[in-house]
């Protein structure tokens, strides 16, 4: 076994320290040491998108990063989006309103991806939405509710800004 390396990163605004082998993935660090179990592992080879988190503001697959690569980084997981325990992020609210989830397993990755997608493209067409979220797999919804939720979130977030 390789040596354990000290790790430190900001996760949802709090400093999280831990220890891990070089091969420890960021996803496993976040789940097991930062206790962000909303980071879901659906494939561990970078296709399904369930493990998507924001690293220094950009959406990335946390299963394709080693924890040591995120040392010092600012990570936001799905747990870090809602402003408080009673209020949902507009994207989370939209997923609920539009039935953008059924089993909920892919949902954290979708929510984080949609937050990042709308940041880059605040007023997307339906076609842009479908391509924008095509890096995340859902097996329950047929994407119908997820597309609708993205549409709603875009409208709400634009309204909030103006």
């Amino acid at each position: 076994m390789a040596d354990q390396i000290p790790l430190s990163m900001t996760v949802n605004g709090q400093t999280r320290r831990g220890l891990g082998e070089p091969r420890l993935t960021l996803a496993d660090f976040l789940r097991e040491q930062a206790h962000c179990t909303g980071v879901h592992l659906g494939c561990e080879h970078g296709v399904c998108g369930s493990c998507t988190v924001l690293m220094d503001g950009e959406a990335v697959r946390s299963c394709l990063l080693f924890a040591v690569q995120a040392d010092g980084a600012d990570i936001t997981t799905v747990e870090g989006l809602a402003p408080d325990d009673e209020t949902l992020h507009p994207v989370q609210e939209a997923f609920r309103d539009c039935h953008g989830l059924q089993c909920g397993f892919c949902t954290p990755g979708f929510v984080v991806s949609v937050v990042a997608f709308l940041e880059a493209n605040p007023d997307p067409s339906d076609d842009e939405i479908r391509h924008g979220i095509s890096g995340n797999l859902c097996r329950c919804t047929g994407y119908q509710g997820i597309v609708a939720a993205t549409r709603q979130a875009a409208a709400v977030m634009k309204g909030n800004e103006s």
Partner: protein
Amino acid sequence: MVGLLAEHGDDAKPLAGGQSLVPLLAMRLTRFEHIVDLNRVDELFGVSPDNGGVRIGAMTRQATVETDTTVAERVPLLHLATPHIGHFQIRNRGTIGGSIAHADPASEYPAVMLAVDGVAEIASATGNREVPAAQFFESTFMTAVAPDELLVALRFSAWDQPAGFAFDEIARRSGDFALAGAAVGIGIDAEGRINRAAVGMLGVGPIPLRASSVEAALMGLDVSDADPAEIGRLAADDMDPIGDVHASVEYRRQAGSTLVGRVLANALAQVTTEAGNG
């Protein structure tokens, strides 16, 4: 960095964006004693103007290439090809150097580099060297970069003539590796005759390929005379496809040459516009 690679040779592997290497490690399909992470080597990042063209550090993220205005102006094919690479989350980590050094014959950047005669800057403990695209891709997943060397940057020159560019590919789903793809650049002289034709192909051989029959057929034609569908068919002879679970040899050859014709048509349409504007 290159010191580490020189020290460990075959036992070490440079880690760029990790979007191809890490899945192989996770599935235990490959393993290395040492992984050399390039993600904190600042001098490997960034796009800079270079002699009228651009120099792109190997660790420059695909997302940066996608949105960089210098790249879009001077190497339009890189700009056009990038959205076809995986998905935006992948492009946030994936790098141009990683993609080119990995040399998947179905990936986008190698075919673009080949089409527009990009140049690889390669460093090692003993010095630096440059390798043009035509000599860079040796066989499937194998390039001119030796185990103790590191790809540090790519250089592309701009086209100094009215030109048109187009890129497209056939993929099973949005973001998948291409079954076949084409990167086409067409340049014309003052009389509107084609004097530069660059046609790179992906997914239709063990390495990225140039459709030299297509290029030869285009040279000297008046841009409005070219029949892209017919000329595109010639690409079938330039291919050396490998069949897999997604598409047979025959499919790649047939659909691939149809695609070359379509992408060529798009590029020709662009060049007409450019010339008209200029």
